[in-house]
């Protein structure tokens, strides 16, 4: 496999005239053609669209109007609406859906000159942690094709890890950017809830959904987040807070800063070898002069159950829009309206999506609402308060992103609860709406492990700074599949 190039490196080549966007885009399309049959990272590749955008980017650079991202090939998770290009959300329900408009994220990255080469595979409607729920088949982990790349942004993670593109967008409702980034050995960043517009992202759980970036380095992720972040009138929960210059503070010293390590992260469930590489990563920060302090998240064990009430409840409501009338799959040969809804939904949704809709419907139904939904919302507050209390003592939290490295395809599909428990370290971050990043921090038995860093609301600059400094001292993020 050829050496992967970061966005920063590609940008330098373009700026120096050593490569054109057409060349970089063609190289990306060739790598996709070569490797994607095995990986299944893409649902759709759009070469014509990509090369036209690349030529426009080359013109723009020639005219002296290019920015740092102009002409760099990338991919969008197939949950982002793209005008004129199919947006399937990896579901039979939307197999033929062509969005009449672009998502804000798509619009902003196109405006910055980035070249989209296609749409990446994912768990159906982003519901899954292994990419196995996709209607278009599972994605393979580039490190070991028998393993899952994680999910739900598994196609984006596999595409970046395999060097098909330097960056891909993702969405993170319970860990769907950070978990696949960890399992594929790349960098995955979820900003604060409301930091990046949700407009044009097919809704899953609206109080948890946030767009994010999967890339090779924290620096690359910062470059892209800079463009994606910011107020959008079309998203009712978009934050009006000003977007700071993330690049300006990337190199700032963390000497004297404090890193909190929740002791509950190292309790039962965490692979001891994984714990070792995380502890080694913490030593790197100690050497930089940061202080490591133990903190506590006493309600951590309730985070996954609370998440798996709030999230399906919101999903069951959001997915009620799929009725076979205005868009999406419609069952044939139906003569009454009630059956049209039921048949279209039953045929259009896969098993895990149906399970989540059923769970959500149940926890919101008469007689169970207080015991489940209302109680989960109270536990959500409990968990959020625990995290806020930590940030009164420390600047940032650190720990493992996942309890184990990549698991086998097929290994957990039959037990939904085991699959859900894989999200133990990531879901609280969404429940509280905090920014979090996963960076590669070592290898366990030949598979990558991730270090998760979590900061207070709107502390993106600090989280990216911590991640970047770690990557200056280590080379785990440069390890790539197929090379040792």
């Amino acid at each position: 496999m050829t050496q992967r190039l970061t966005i920063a490196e590609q940008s330098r080549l373009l700026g120096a005239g050593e490569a054109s966007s057409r060349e970089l885009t063609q190289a990306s399309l060739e790598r996709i053609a070569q490797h994607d049959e095995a990986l299944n990272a893409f649902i759709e590749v759009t070469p014509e669209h990509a090369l036209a955008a690349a030529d426009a980017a080359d013109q723009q650079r020639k005219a002296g109007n290019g920015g740092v991202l102009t002409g760099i090939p990338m991919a969008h998770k197939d949950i982002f609406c793209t005008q004129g290009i199919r947006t399937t959300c990896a579901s039979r329900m939307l197999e033929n859906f062509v969005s009449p408009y672009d998502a804000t994220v798509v619009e902003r990255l196109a405006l910055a000159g980035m070249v989209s080469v296609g749409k990446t595979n994912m768990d159906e409607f982003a519901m899954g942690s292994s990419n196995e729920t996709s209607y278009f088949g599972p994605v393979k982990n580039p490190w070991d094709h028998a393993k899952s790349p994680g999910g739900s942004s598994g196609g984006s993670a596999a595409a970046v890890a395999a060097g098909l593109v330097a960056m891909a967008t993702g969405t993170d409702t319970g860990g769907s950017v950070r978990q696949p980034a960890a399992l594929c050995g790349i960098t995955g960043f979820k900003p604060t809830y409301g930091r990046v517009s949700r407009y044009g992202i097919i809704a899953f759980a609206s109080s948890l959904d946030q767009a994010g970036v999967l890339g090779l380095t924290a620096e690359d992720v910062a470059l892209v987040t800079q463009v994606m972040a910011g107020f959008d009138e079309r998203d009712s929960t978009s934050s009006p807070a000003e977007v700071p210059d993330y690049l300006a503070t990337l190199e700032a010293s963390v000497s004297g800063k404090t890193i909190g390590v929740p002791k509950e992260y190292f309790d039962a469930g965490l692979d001891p070898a994984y714990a070792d590489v995380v502890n080694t990563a913490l030593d790197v920060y100690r050497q930089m002069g940061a202080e490591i302090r133990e903190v506590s998240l006493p309600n951590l064990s309730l985070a996954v159950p609370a998440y798996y009430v709030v999230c399906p409840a919101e999903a069951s409501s959001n997915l009620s829009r799929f009725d076979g009338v205005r868009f999406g799959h419609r069952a044939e040969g139906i003569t009454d309206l009630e059956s049209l809804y039921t048949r279209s939904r039953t045929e259009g949704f896969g098993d895990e999506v149906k399970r989540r809709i059923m769970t959500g419907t149940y926890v919101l139904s008469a007689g169970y609402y207080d015991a489940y939904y209302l109680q989960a919302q109270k536990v959500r507050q409990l968990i959020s308060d625990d995290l806020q209390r930590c940030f009164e003592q420390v600047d940032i939290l650190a720990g493992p992103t996942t309890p184990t490295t990549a698991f086998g395809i097929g290994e957990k599909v039959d037990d939904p609860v085991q699959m859900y428990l894989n999200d133990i370290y990531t879901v609280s971050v969404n429940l509280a709406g905090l920014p979090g990043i996963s960076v590669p921090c070592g290898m366990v038995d030949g598979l990558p492990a991730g270090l998760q860093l979590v900061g207070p609301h709107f502390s993106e600059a600090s989280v990216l700074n911590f991640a970047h400094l770690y990557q200056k001292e280590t080379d785990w993020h440069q390890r790539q599949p197929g090379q040792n």
Partner: protein
Amino acid sequence: MTLSRQDIEYIAHLARLEVSESDVPAYVDKLGRIIEFIDELGQADTADMVPMAHPLDMSQRLRADEVTESDERDRYQANAPETENGVYVVPRVVE
């Protein structure tokens, strides 16, 4: 708590999903395991907690009541399974 066959059928009806006879045991099992798992929430002491609906403390933004969208009916209806004269077609509901 465990779920019965009747529970599964009732939830499926509310969700407008069909559960075939042969799928019922799998739903009783898997959904039952999920419900058992989320039952853990009952152990939490939340007596003084205010339910949290949203991660950020923000209020609903308002805007002037002005027309901001243009008529895009044809473009939007291009995704519809069946339309006629600009309306969505469904099976007859009133005889």
